[in-house]
């Protein structure tokens, strides 16, 4: 049955406007959540939500890419496409998590980092690069949930974690299928075809060892049973927190380094 769902179907489901957003899950999973704002440099960019949450007496730092749930919200959230200020805000909270020795939970859901004039002027590339570098050395556990679209460096910038989980109908890719088709075949309209070869589904990424776990969704998508999916994410948070907090700091960092170091096979001639 699951075999009949094409990669493009998953793309459509991952982008469904009714699909739960990060804040929907956060409300359902945690006992308490306080959103905190700003990158301390220039702005509070709202495509990434940061804050503190508690679950079973453990405090977590939350970093979440947030799409709008309607047009008004989408404008506020810039359609979930972060500017550099969002990545710098995320980094501020990651460093804070390290200071207070609490685990980090990130929720990935973006079409990609925002391609705009100001974003370039303020160093979009630098902001993403710095997060990749800094995340690789953070001395606290990082648990990543790809809940919708995980597209390009804009997704990866909050996804260098110890335990990476994907929802069954989420996608994770180098670029949107439209962008991929446009670069490879000079024809963005071949997105559907691109999706089928890109290996962007949870199953593909699990087989590639890019992710560690898949959380199943109800038929038709996560929106059909938000409570159940939230409950499953919560379980995953609790289990992996328990496991990861037992590992010594230096070992945790070394394991994370190896995890990404080993990504990508090649043939030795």
């Amino acid at each position: 049955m699951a075999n009949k769902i094409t990669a493009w179907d998953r793309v459509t489901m991952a982008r469904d406007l009714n699909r739960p957003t990060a804040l929907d899950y956060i409300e359902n999973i945690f006992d308490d959540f306080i959103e905190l704002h700003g990158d301390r440099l220039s702005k509070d960019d709202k495509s990434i939500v940061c804050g503190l949450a508690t679950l079973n007496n453990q405090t977590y730092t939350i970093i979440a890419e947030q799409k709008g749930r309607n047009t008004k919200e989408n404008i506020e959230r810039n359609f979930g496409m972060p500017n550099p200020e969002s990545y710098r805000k995320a980094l501020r909270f990651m460093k804070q998590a390290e200071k207070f020795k609490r685990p980090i939970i990130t929720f990935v859901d973006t079409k990609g980092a925002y391609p705009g004039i100001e974003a370039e002027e303020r160093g979009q590339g630098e902001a993403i690069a710095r997060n990749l570098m800094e995340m690789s050395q953070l001395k606290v556990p990082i648990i990543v949930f790809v809940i919708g679209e995980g597209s390009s460096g804009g997704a990866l910038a909050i996804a260098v974690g110890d335990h990476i989980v994907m929802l069954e109908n989420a996608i994770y890719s180098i670029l949107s299928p439209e962008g991929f088709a446009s670069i490879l075949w000079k024809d963005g309209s071949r997105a559907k075809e691109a999706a089928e070869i890109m290996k962007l589904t949870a199953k593909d990424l699990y087989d590639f060892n890019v992710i560690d776990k898949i959380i199943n969704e109800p038929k038709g998508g996560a929106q059909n049973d938000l409570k159940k999916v939230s409950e499953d994410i919560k379980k995953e948070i609790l289990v992996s927190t328990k496991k990861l907090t037992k590992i010594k700091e230096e070992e945790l960092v070394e394991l994370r380094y190896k995890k990404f170091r080993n990504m990508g096979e090649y043939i030795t001639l």
Partner: protein
Amino acid sequence: MIVDKIKKRELPQKNKKTNIDIPIGKWVKCTKCKEIIYREHLRSNLNICPNCGHYFRMHINKRLELITDEGTYKKFDLNIETTNPLNIEEYPKKMKALREKTDLPEAVTAGTAKINGEDVVLCIMDSGFLMGSMGVVVGEKITYAIEQAIKLKLPIIIFSVSGGARMQEGIMSLMQMAKTSAAIAKLNKEGLLYISVLTDPTYGGVTASFASLGDIILSEPEAMIGFAGPRVIEQTIKQELPEGFQTAEFLLEHGFIDKIVERKDMKNFLHKLIVMHKKKGSE
């Protein structure tokens, strides 16, 4: 990962307009001033247009000649090839054709060399190879080079030129961004110098990883550098981009590179930086 339409600066080898009896391939047209230039003049002028000073792109071998002391470059023994993770039928054929055309195994070379007598680890990318895009092999070579710099306690210099992450290897290309950036973090812990040199064009996943993480970031004049490609930005914001947008000069003004260095001065400038980073009293 985004740049597909950065204008090709080096034109195809034929020049239809010329009516002088000179073999095809000996002339190129400068994309900036449109002047027809004798290829040999371009070559002897460091691939810079003798008419307007425009910088043409450079083959790895030419760059090595320019930057390293003669005969000192030793390539790392790392002969690897892509597994074609997305099983794209044309990809291995394309790679084979490119290897023959460019006389390079991949879009980057990595090894050790001397610069005015100073030992360094050096990586140089090449735009002639799928626009210098980063797939697993490029990511692995860069990471390996950074790890060798740590092992050998040497400074590392990376010359970037890239359209970004390589589409043909999908998500595995994306992961090379994390891999290379994590290696730079390790290098930093060891207190070693990393000089990133950006050349035309540097975009996408390369800008958003190791290229932006140098202790010192240099660029050649007028190089185009950014995260998103100009066409993607124009399509998103539905307006034309301002003059000079995403040039090295633009980045310098916005605080994202340390200095623009001319091609003719690059070797001596790198040498100066390396010497200035040597620990005092260590000798």
